[in-house]
């Protein structure tokens, strides 16, 4: 309702690495309308209370991607996050810089790793010299081809997904959801001639470290669903490359594994993925577990109707075919 305000308490992360020994949280309480955005509130804090608060912002309309930060531990664009629901849920609003990027000052982070991974996937058209662009005309692109991009053209490079990603947190070499979603955008672009090479290049240390936890999809303000695009890349990579990496071998191995009994054969899967040497490496662990859980050594029961499962495989477990 226009005119009503609520008492909103903000806890804002403050840290100047050149001056402060450690970070602190600065508390401000403002009377604001519930639909006020976090950015509007921050600009009021800067304008009226403390002009030394550092943050990035520009468009205030969720298109430039500058103002991503953690709002009550969720990576979000400050300019499109309303304070009302956050206050209802948490009673206060804790504002912190994005994760997985070093803090430059207060809410401003060093985005170098983010830009680095983006650049590394070669985000530009790679052409086949034998197929030059049509002179003076656009490349035709059917509505189906446009649809294949899904929402990836909407990316504003805000890094909220990168901030939310536990795989990036655990492994700084992991490209992160944005770079992978960008890779998807180029792989499905009919004008690009390099999709096979791209899928080849991304796999070692790249694609298969994704945990498919979907935290990126929750964080993304533009509904790009990076985790689902990464899944698409995985399937495409297998179709184009076969199972060449541990990750693809595991997926393909799992797929084949079920045909045996209809349920997962754990021992067999380890062997399929890691090979004999891999298995030996896990031997100590295996023995330890088997003492408490002997089932790990035996095969699962065979399900009834396994022939139905086999028929489904026969119909759909084809190599090639259209990756969606």
């Amino acid at each position, binding site marked *: 309702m226009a005119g009503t305000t609520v008492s909103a308490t903000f806890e804002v992360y403050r840290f100047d690495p050149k001056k402060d020994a450690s970070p602190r949280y600065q508390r401000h309480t403002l009377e604001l309308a519930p639909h006020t955005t976090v950015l509007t509130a921050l600009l009021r804090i800067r304008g009226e209370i403390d002009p030394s608060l550092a943050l990035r912002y520009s468009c205030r309309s969720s298109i430039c991607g500058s103002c991503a930060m953690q709002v009550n531990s969720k990576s979000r664009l400050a300019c499109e996050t309303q304070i009302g629901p956050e206050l209802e849920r948490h009673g206060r609003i804790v504002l912190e810089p994005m994760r997985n990027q070093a803090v430059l000052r207060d809410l401003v982070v060093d985005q170098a790793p983010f830009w680095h991974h983006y650049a590394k996937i070669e985000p530009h058209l790679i052409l086949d010299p034998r197929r030059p662009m049509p002179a003076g005309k656009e490349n035709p692109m059917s509505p189906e081809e446009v649809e294949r991009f899904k929402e990836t053209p909407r990316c504003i490079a805000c890094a909220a997904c990168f901030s939310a990603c536990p795989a990036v947190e655990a492994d700084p070499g992991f490209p992160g959801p944005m770079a992978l979603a960008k890779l998807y955008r180029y792989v499905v672009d009919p004008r690009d001639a390099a999709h096979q090479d791209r899928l080849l290049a991304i796999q070692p240390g790249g694609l298969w470290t994704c*945990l498919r936890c*979907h935290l990126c*999809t929750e964080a993304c303000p533009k509904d790009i669903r990076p985790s689902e695009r990464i899944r698409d890349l995985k399937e495409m990579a297998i179709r184009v490359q076969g199972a060449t*990496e541990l990750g693809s071998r595991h997926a393909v191995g799992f797929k084949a594994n079920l045909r045996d009994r209809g349920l997962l054969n754990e021992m067999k899967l380890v062997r399929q993925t890691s090979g004999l040497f891999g298995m030996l490496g896990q031997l100590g662990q295996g023995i330890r577990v088997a003492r408490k859980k002997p089932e790990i050594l035996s095969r*699962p029961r065979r399900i009834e109707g396994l022939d139905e499962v086999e028929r489904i495989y026969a119909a759909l477990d084809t190599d090639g075919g259209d990756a969606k």
Partner: protein
Amino acid sequence: MKLAYYPGCVAQESGKELDLATRWVCRALDIELVDFPNFSCCGSGFIDEANEVLNVALNARNLAIAERAGLDVLTICSTCQGMLSLANLRLGDARVKARVDGALKPIGIEYRGTTKVKHLLQVLVQDVGLAAIRAKVRRPLRGLKIGAFYGCHLLRPADEMQFESGEEPRSFEDLLDALGATPVYYRGRVMCCGFPIQFVKPGTATGIAGRQIDDAKAHGAEAMATPCPLCHLSLDTYQNQAAKSVGHALDMPVFHLPQVVGLAFGATPEELGLPRHLVPTDAVVARIGPTTPA
């Protein structure tokens, strides 16, 4: 309540204690579980990576089996919940449905899309209700500080799973509270356990698991509880490796969801398969004490 019981592979094999505990709790709550020996593995997310349509078809068959019996499905694994729900969702795409129907029809299977899939956590909190659960508690958990660990696929993508918030859920904490425990909130409770890359990058995977356990500990948790047996594998069975990755002992007992419920309802540790855990639960169970008289 009568449900088609979909335990998933791990609960039928190395995670047998989860199946034991589930059956015990469902008996206590008059939930009839119907077994289907023809259910196949949900694919665990790995088949989805290799061949999305195949994954949908395999799970459409599972859902059709339940549909034929006129029953909704109960899952006890976050990943199974995710995969079966995903099948329902993807069948909304006409192209996917056409290909799946094309594979199912020749084997006489028709899935009309009516099967609902619910995880035990959902059933307890939404269908049974916290009031009824509170009424069944015989051995309140004496404020035991328990950190829930949800498992990604139960919650996300939130708009697809349609359960609760993908980043800020509270169903498990509400349940723990109803059982007399003290729920511990920590960032890691909604994060990944590392399991999906256990075979790809074991060091990274166990490091992730270790980080979540450390986080729970730092917020005061004496134990953790999870609705996903794959997370349990990562957090309990591989906890020794997680400890190695983070460089210190973790000593965190990890319960399956129905084990916590069962303990509060008065079951013995043996009835719930607790001796099978790799990280001993005795000390924590001793904190709770014997069953209170009815």
